[in-house]
């Protein structure tokens, strides 16, 4: 088994409900890469693997929420798989979006009240329970807080979302 096989195994594993892949430290440990240039060597391996699997529609991606490397499928193939977990459930999608907005301001966590305020709803307990069940967030009932799990970083292309929102904002601004 060569390094690429080991990386493939590590990046395709599911650690728990909301984590996939492996951290850089884990990759270095499993591959027994040591020395001054270990990070450069690992990056080179990851780039080589990513280039190798790209024609198959796969990418090596980095989740900025937990700093894990993992394997993702490109947008064309993703669309074939019906990857939208909220298809037919727009209310859940909207609640998650608002949670994401609130959490981005507060380094990953927010008060439930803030989400309710943003959603302009009386209660969101059902939505939040459902999202927690799906693994997107953790509810701290004691402090009335919500914490995002890294799952959203895996399943949602945040760069694409930022770009899309920026374009919508630009359009709105130019119309006004």
């Amino acid at each position, binding site marked *: 088994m060569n390094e690429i096989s080991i990386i*493939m*195994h*590590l*990046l*395709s*594993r*599911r650690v728990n409900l909301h984590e*996939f892949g492996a951290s850089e430290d884990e990759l270095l440990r499993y591959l027994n890469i040591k020395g001054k240039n270990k990070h*450069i060597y690992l990056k080179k391996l990851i780039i080589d693997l990513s280039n190798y699997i790209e024609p198959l529609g*796969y990418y090596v*991606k980095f989740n900025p929420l937990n700093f894990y490397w*993992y*394997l*993702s*499928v490109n*947008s064309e*193939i*993703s*669309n074939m*798989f019906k*990857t*939208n*977990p*909220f298809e037919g*459930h*727009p*209310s859940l*999608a*909207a609640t*998650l*979006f*608002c949670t*994401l*907005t609130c959490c*981005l*301001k507060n380094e990953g966590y927010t008060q439930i009240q803030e989400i309710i305020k*943003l959603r302009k709803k009386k209660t969101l307990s059902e939505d939040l329970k459902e999202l927690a069940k799906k693994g997107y967030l953790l509810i701290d009932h004691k402090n009335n807080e919500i914490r995002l799990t890294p799952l959203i970083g*895996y*399943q*949602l*292309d*945040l760069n*694409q*979302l*930022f770009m*899309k*929102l*920026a374009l*919508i*904002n630009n359009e*709105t601004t130019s119309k006004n």
Partner: protein
Amino acid sequence: MGYDDISEELTNYIDTVKEDVVTGKISLLELELNPIFDQLKESLSIYNIFNYSQTYEKACDLLALKFEELKNLLNHLDNDEIFLNFLKSKPSDIEIEQVLGNCWRKVFHLESISPEFMIYSNHRFSKDRLITEKIDHVRKEPVGGSFLLEIPRQKFTEKMLDFYEHIKNKLPCKFDKLFDEFQDQMEIYESFVYILHLLQIGKITYEKTTNIVRYKNE
């Protein structure tokens, strides 16, 4: 192509750039690093490679520093503002779902090729297996009464000398003539072996040019 050693010159330049970055004179994001790496590549040869390792390391440090600056810049972009501005337009739940729509990605995960499976398989396959080898003893077959090892009635020397006596009258003659009376291949082969031995012990001689076999005394 010339391979001038400009490693010192480049190292000094990188040091100056670093100093300017630290003192805030310049921003790495505005500085092109390609020329440094291009010059490194163009002037590098097997003769000056030892001088270049430190220069290369410093250039890489500079590149890492540039990435760090870029990361900081990206972190400071107002991502949360973009989200809030969108929500200010009071989108419906369906509109929000549509915005998220094309951004969902499938994570590649197959249980069968995960490390857990690899470790599980490894444990299963690496077990020492005790295979008990069954040895079947060969049964001794009863020897039939008709089995006899065939032993020639005469010794080889005797047979050879008989052959010698037999061909004596023909000699001298052509080599082929000695085999004229034999039809069976085994007999021809046997006679040939006798001739070789007779040549060896010097009873007969053979002339390659004339292809004639003679008595030794002739």
